[in-house]
């Protein structure tokens, strides 16, 4: 939690000079990898941030849309929150590339017939992503965005996903 505070403080300092707030919504096809198997629940990503001179701070909030099974075990990303420092390329012909580094807290729910297996799992730690975006013609300040997002890489579980959505800059 202390890391989130650190990032929030830094975000506040940037906000003082921030000139471009933005908001985004993405659909995420996530990938939970465990024991060489994979579950692919879906989720909705909400993003909000402020950018300043090719840098941005972004908060992300993920809510589950659908769950998925590995054999008889059900997996669902319950929710995930994260704060990211985003390095942004220059926009060339409306096209740009972002790389984000940050910290995410992700909660996963597991349902199985096993009595011994916990149902709630928390994965907190380093998260990163890479995104490409293209300005949408005729819709001012709006970009369509495709990204790969890694939420957690652990000893037994990796959580990542591919997102597709829109970003609107105010």
């Amino acid at each position, binding site marked *: 939690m202390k890391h989130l505070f650190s990032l929030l403080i830094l975000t506040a300092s940037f906000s003082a000079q921030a000139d471009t707030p933005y908001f985004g919504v993405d659909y995420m096809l996530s990938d939970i990898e*465990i024991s060489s198997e994979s579950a692919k629940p879906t989720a909705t990503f909400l993003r909000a941030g402020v950018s300043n001179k090719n*840098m941005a701070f972004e908060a992300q909030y993920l809510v589950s849309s659908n769950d998925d099974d590995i054999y008889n075990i059900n997996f669902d990303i319950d929710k995930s929150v994260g704060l990211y420092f985003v390095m942004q390329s220059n926009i060339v012909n409306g096209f740009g590339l972002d790389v984000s580094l940050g910290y995410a807290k992700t909660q996963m729910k597991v349902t199985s017939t096993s009595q011994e297996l*916990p149902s709630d799992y928390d994965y907190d730690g380093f998260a990163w992503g890479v995104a490409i975006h293209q300005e949408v013609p005729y819709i001012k300040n709006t970009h369509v965005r495709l990204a790969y997002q890694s939420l957690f890489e652990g000893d037994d579980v990796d959580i990542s996903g591919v997102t597709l959505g829109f970003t609107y800059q105010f």
Partner: protein
Amino acid sequence: MKKISNVTKLSTVALIVTSILGCGSETDSSKLAKEVELEKLRENGTIIETVSIENSQVRLKAGETHQLIATGIDSNGDSRDITDELTWQTSDETIAKISSSGLLTALKNADSSQGLLTITATTINDIFDEEEISISDVAASSISLKQIAPASGSINTCMPARISADITYADGYIAQNSIRGVNFSIDEDSTARINNQGIIYTSAANIENTTVTGTINNVSGELVVTADPVNLESLNLIVAEETVDEITLNVGEQIQLAAQATYDESVSEQAVNINPSVNWSVINAGLVGLSENVSTDEGDNAAILALKPGVTQLIGSCGPKQKIATLVIEGNDDLNSIQINEGNSEYTISSSESLDLQLTANYNSSPQSLNVTEFATWSTNDSNLITAKLINPGTQQAAFRVTSKANNLGTAVITVTYDSLVSSTLINIE
């Protein structure tokens, strides 16, 4: 001033991101990972219900290694090698350690009675087997050879059979079905061959008795094995995994040969690979080069290289049976010249150094050149200076390896003859 501000920001960000990289926490998910693995096995019906360590009854000395093998029977009733699927443990890791793939390394000789150490192999669903292994330097006092496959009676001519041993040590420990450290040999009158794994290959046309001797630490034991061809019904020639009666090749083409034997149904309902037992020959040896006992991933095979166009017959024989296949070789053999390596007139090597010589046949038409090293006749004028052997037979990497003898200096002449053409080179040993 703005630049300084940006540098400060970037440094701050870098520091925070770096601190994040090293931090994080997660709910222990090892049980979940195990449950997923179990579900996968249950779904496929391959969850192991019984496990047995196959080859633990051996004696090792400190510093030696031994690959343990475990077999499991799954919920489908199928048996499979599960060596890599187990958690392996030893009762004393100061005496021996064991890898996740079952490779046991003896670190020191055990002080316990007979040097016994317990090995445990456990499956993901907690099914386990425990066996004892011995780690001691007490020597063998006797060895008793026995047939393993078949377990008793005559062995079937041409079909590989397995010999093993029970080794009794001076402290009373008995290593059962162990070939570890045993050197096998057979009597000189037998046509059979045996390797260090205790696999015996037989090929006599009639019933043949072979005396197998196993030796360990100057202690020997003998076993008489009888090979009987009565159940051998036929031989098949296998090329590219197909049974064939005729083979068509172009000049320069090389293929691997293999043979299978069919036996009376009481012996085997399926054809048996008998490659190492087969004797191969070609009626017109000038048309093809025949390489026997070529080591391949599938074991010892034979290979043929088409050298000249024409039609001949390839014969594979084992026991009283033969398989004759027609061999058709197409193309041209307009031989122009032969050349040793790059064609140098002399080579220089040091004492005890080796040099690989390859003989290339150059043609006026396709194939432009061909490695004919193993089908040429090589000779040297001074065997006191060098020794020579053929390496990589049956492949296009075949070479005549010349090695100079230690402390002998001088010049040896290597002469090679192929298809009436002669070439030579000098080997200077300095």
